[in-house]
């Protein structure tokens, strides 16, 4: 076995090549499951052997040759069984054509991502679909990250792929006119995978998901270099990823942003994020991810320089709120506003959220409310809100932090 680093690099090449081949094959046959099926054994063999024997000179050709052998077997089995599975024949022909192709296989991954994040696909399944088709993650790993039984996730993935085939979902990059809206769906799916990986730090299965999402973010920026929102989203992910090591102290306890040791921040990731944000800002008007990345940039600047910039953060949230009207933005804006106008003004901003039933079991709402009430000196309602927040928390480190805060309130 090669050292971990080289092994991971080999795995990356395998995933890269696999995703490109699946995308190309699926776009030709309109059959995502068939394309995955045709390449799955070859991909599994690559994941097993490349980290040990090294990556072949032409990874695509290696995978295709292995897949072709298997597909020929499948065709001969089919003839003896006389099963009318024409697509097996079709896939075999496509693979044969690809194997003989002298030029590089065209990259259709972008088209496949647009198919996976099509409005006709259930919102919650878009990220899992992209993770499976583009990166070749298996249903068990995706299920673990999304907190679902493997069988349930497997069934949902199969259903979604059938839907792509049967509903006539196109494999193409949308026209410039539709692009912004459709791209937003793709970015939302990737970002959903990232936040899954980001929020649940405690679970071993999940942190890798954040890495995979960042990798998808880099991919989409490289495939759509002129889209500022794609850069904005990648920048947003990198800003938060840069703080990863600072979020927990040596004993594993949660450390809030304002108390993090900035020496633990990854300066190279921050520089990368700043550069992307700068490019995005130069390219055009602000979208949701661009604004959120700008907010993260402001947080980084404040902590690094020690100079307060809360009014600028509140102004950015104003833009975001005008754009989204989301209760989550109202909440985050109020928390920032407390630093400018005090906790009472922030609490008044939260009043409309109390009628929103979704907030009743939304942990950040209760945590923010408890935090603001305790700063305002309303200790009894603060303790109540913190208690509800603790009851809603699934991360043990965050739970421990809130329990300690509650204890200081009660004493």
């Amino acid at each position, binding site marked *: 076995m090669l050292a971990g680093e080289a092994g991971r690099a080999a795995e990356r090449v395998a995933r890269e090549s696999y995703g490109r081949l699946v995308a190309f094959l699926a776009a030709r046959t309109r059959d995502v499951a068939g394309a995955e099926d045709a390449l799955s054994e070859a991909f599994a063999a690559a994941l097993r052997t490349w980290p040990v024997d090294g990556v072949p000179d032409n990874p695509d050709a290696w995978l295709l040759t292995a897949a072709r052998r298997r597909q020929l077997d499948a065709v001969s089995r089919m003839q003896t069984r006389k099963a009318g599975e024409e697509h097996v024949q079709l896939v075999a022909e496509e693979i044969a054509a690809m194997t003989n192709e002298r030029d590089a296989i065209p990259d259709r991954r972008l088209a496949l991502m647009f198919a996976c994040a099509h409005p006709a696909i259930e919102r919650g399944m878009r990220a899992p679909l992209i993770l499976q088709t583009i990166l070749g993650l298996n249903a068990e790993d995706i299920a673990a990250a999304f907190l679902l039984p493997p069988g349930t996730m497997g069934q949902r993935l199969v259903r979604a792929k059938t839907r792509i085939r049967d509903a006539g979902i196109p494999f193409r990059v949308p026209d410039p006119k539709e692009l912004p809206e459709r791209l937003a769906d793709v970015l939302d799916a990737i970002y959903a995978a990232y936040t899954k990986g980001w929020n649940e730090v405690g679970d071993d299965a999940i942190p890798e998901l954040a890495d995979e999402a960042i990798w998808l973010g880099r991919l989409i920026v490289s495939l759509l270099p002129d889209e500022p929102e794609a850069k904005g989203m990648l920048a947003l992910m990198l800003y938060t990823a840069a703080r990863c090591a600072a979020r927990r102290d040596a004993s594993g306890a949660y450390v809030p942003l304002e108390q993090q040791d900035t020496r633990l921040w990854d300066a190279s990731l921050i520089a990368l994020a700043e550069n992307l944000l700068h490019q995005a800002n130069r390219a055009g008007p602000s979208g949701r991810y661009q604004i959120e990345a700008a907010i993260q940039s402001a947080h980084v600047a404040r902590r690094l320089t020690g100079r307060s910039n809360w009014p600028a953060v509140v102004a950015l949230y104003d833009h975001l709120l005008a754009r989204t009207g989301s209760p989550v933005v109202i909440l985050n804006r109020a928390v920032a506003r407390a630093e400018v106008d005090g906790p009472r003004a922030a609490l008044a901003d939260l009043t409309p959220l109390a009628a929103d*039933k979704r907030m009743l079991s939304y942990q950040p709402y209760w945590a923010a409310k408890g935090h603001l009430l305790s700063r305002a000196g309303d200790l009894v309602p603060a303790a*109540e809100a913190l208690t509800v927040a603790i*009851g809603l*928390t*699934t991360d043990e480190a965050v739970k421990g932090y809130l329990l300690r805060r509650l204890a200081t309130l009660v004493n």
Partner: protein
Amino acid sequence: MRFMMLIHHDEAALTAAVQKELGTEYGAFMEALAKAEGCTAGNRLQSSSTATTVRQQDGKTSVLDGPYADTKEQLAGYYIVDVPSLDEAIVWAKRCPSSKYGSIEIRPILEPQASWKR
């Protein structure tokens, strides 16, 4: 969709837990459950050693000491959540401190249907 969340405890692991911390966590969980729409706190049961199991078979009634199955994890209580799908029910299972001391079985409640009332 309503789900009954069946708490099964490893009673030995529970006894070994720091009772004061568990009490605070459980209190917070109950508060959160009480706030959420359509969810009910349910009940905690006494230990499985207090159980009695009754069964009728071939016209004979047997009454036995103890739980119906002698397993490491025993039914210890339940609560009910009303959420859009299984996905949210799983999050409610993870929130429950009992998931650290055993397991939580999630079962959709079979809702009475109009056709049954004929």
